[in-house]
């Protein structure tokens, strides 16, 4: 029976003395997290720089969302594994087995699990803009780094962050904006072969994309996803069980995950993105190389996300994405099928189900159920996912059995 083999151990710990009436100095949840991590790592004799995974709860206080990437940024960690648990009193047990399983799988090597339960400081006065005003995924709660150092300058939401990635990318590698627009146009060809896509029946050209209103230089309106309603679900089961089911089994043969920051200002790089290490691990685990896959389903909240993901996933070299796009047809009928359902740019972005749409499309193609846009070769797929602003990224290699 599959299971843990004892290949992972607990190497050290720290425990604060319980107090009915707290006598210490109140600190923010992020500060408590860094204190606990430093003390536990010292107890284990492991350098903080060795940490590449974390398990946390929802208790940091300053950030209601994106807690793992906020902790990673705060502690200066580049992580290959992150988990936020929501299991109440079972959370700490859950953290330990997840950490052990992840380590045995080779996802990571040093995981810090922590839970903070000490008082945080009270605001010195009522906040001008209260913590309930969230500015999208940006946290404006007191003590949040974004509230203090980013939101006051208007650096909030997603558009300006991705735009600053694009600005830096083109400054380093060249200003071919038509290739960025071609990603949108090629994906729209696939959307026009997908009756479920929001843009079904609405082809666009490169010129159409570049003529759409500028939102945040250099990104135009048609390079940005359209929010919509929707939903999706996947069933994952054992290969033995799947062999008796009606559809072709789609095995998860490789995965990777990497996160480094919440706000791009503090990212280690704006041109080497976290999907790179995630993809490298996924391909190595699967024993294949990027050139082996029959299709790629790349998370595409913006055109620049696709460009960076093509390069960092290894389909072309760094800085070669624009030339790659110019010389390949990315539509379902082309020589490099990419986002064969139209991507979110063509299909729409129904919240979190937008990211699931890439996985669903890969499964649909591998199983031969993609209708008019069915690929002739459909055995091996690469899928990427992106959260935040290139903050947390993950990769899958899927193989039909």
């Amino acid at each position, binding site marked *: 029976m599959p299971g843990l083999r004892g290949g992972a151990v607990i190497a050290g710990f720290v425990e604060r003395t319980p107090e009915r009436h707290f006598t210490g100095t109140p600190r923010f949840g992020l500060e408590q997290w860094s204190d606990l991590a*430093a003390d536990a790592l010292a107890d284990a004799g492991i350098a903080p720089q060795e940490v590449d995974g974390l398990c946390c709860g929802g208790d940091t206080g300053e950030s209601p969302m994106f807690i793992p990437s906020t902790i990673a940024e705060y502690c200066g960690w580049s992580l290959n594994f992150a988990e936020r648990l929501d299991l109440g009193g079972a959370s700490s047990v859950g953290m330990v087995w997840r950490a052990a399983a992840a380590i045995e799988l080779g996802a990571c090597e040093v995981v810090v699990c922590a839970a903070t339960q000490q008082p945080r400081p009270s605001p010195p006065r009522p906040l001008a803009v209260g913590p309930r005003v969230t500015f999208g995924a940006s946290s404006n709660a007191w003590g949040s780094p974004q509230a203090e150092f980013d939101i006051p300058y*208007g650096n909030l939401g997603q558009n300006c962050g991705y735009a600053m990635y694009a600005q830096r990318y083109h400054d380093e590698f060249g200003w071919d904006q038509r290739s960025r627009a071609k990603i949108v146009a090629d994906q729209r060809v696939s959307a026009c072969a997908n009756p479920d896509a929001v843009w079904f029946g609405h082809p666009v050209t490169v010129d159409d994309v570049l003529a759409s209103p500028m939102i945040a230089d250099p990104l135009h309106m048609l390079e940005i996803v359209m929010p919509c309603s929707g939903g999706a679900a996947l069933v994952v089961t054992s290969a033995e069980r799947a062999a008796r089911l009606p559809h072709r089994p789609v095995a998860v043969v490789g995965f990777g995950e990497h996160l480094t920051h919440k706000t791009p200002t503090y990212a280690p790089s704006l041109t080497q993105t976290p999907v790179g290490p995630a993809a490298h691990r996924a391909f190595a685990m699967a024993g294949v190389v990027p050139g082996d896959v029959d299709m790629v389903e790349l998370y595409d909240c913006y055109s620049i996300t696709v460009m960076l993901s093509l390069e960092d996933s290894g389909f072309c070299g760094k800085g070669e994405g624009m030339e790659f796009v110019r010389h390949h047809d990315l539509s379902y009928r082309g020589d490099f099928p990419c986002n064969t359902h139209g991507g979110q740019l063509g299909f729409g972005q129904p919240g979190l189900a937008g990211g699931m749409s890439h996985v669903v499309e890969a499964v649909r193609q591998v199983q031969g159920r993609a209708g008019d846009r069915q690929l002739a070769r459909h055995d091996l797929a690469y899928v990427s996912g992106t959260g935040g602003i290139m903050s947390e990224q993950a990769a899958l290699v899927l193989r039909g059995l």
Partner: protein
Amino acid sequence: MSGGRPPGYPQRDDPVAAKPLPVPTPTSQPYWDGLARHELCLQHCDACDAWVYYPRHRCPACLSDRLSWNTVDAAGTVYTFTVARRPTAPPFADEVPQIIAVVALGVGAHVTTTLVDVAPEDVRIGMPVTGVFDAQGDGVTLLRFRPA
């Protein structure tokens, strides 16, 4: 706009200009105190020699808590930027087109800011810039940048 301030700065008499301003924490207070004196104060790690921004309780390079405050030159270069043609949130409507930027300070730290006293079409990555200490309400001073 009828604010009477140069483009790029908040137009204070605009009714929508209720800006989300920073509220200093015990950890960051020296940084904001420095800006109010027109000084840029950053933390330096005495354990590993790293410069730390934004202010933290521990060093993000080594997790040491041996951090000391130092005044550095409020100057650097534009690392990246965008021009928000639509406000990123309603409170910033009066600053559109707003030049949101990341500036690389001389000590290497990257900071979020807005660029002022420059037209959007004249901004270039790598452009040398110098700090502008822009006093807001509530005694908070923001650090903007203009071409050096």
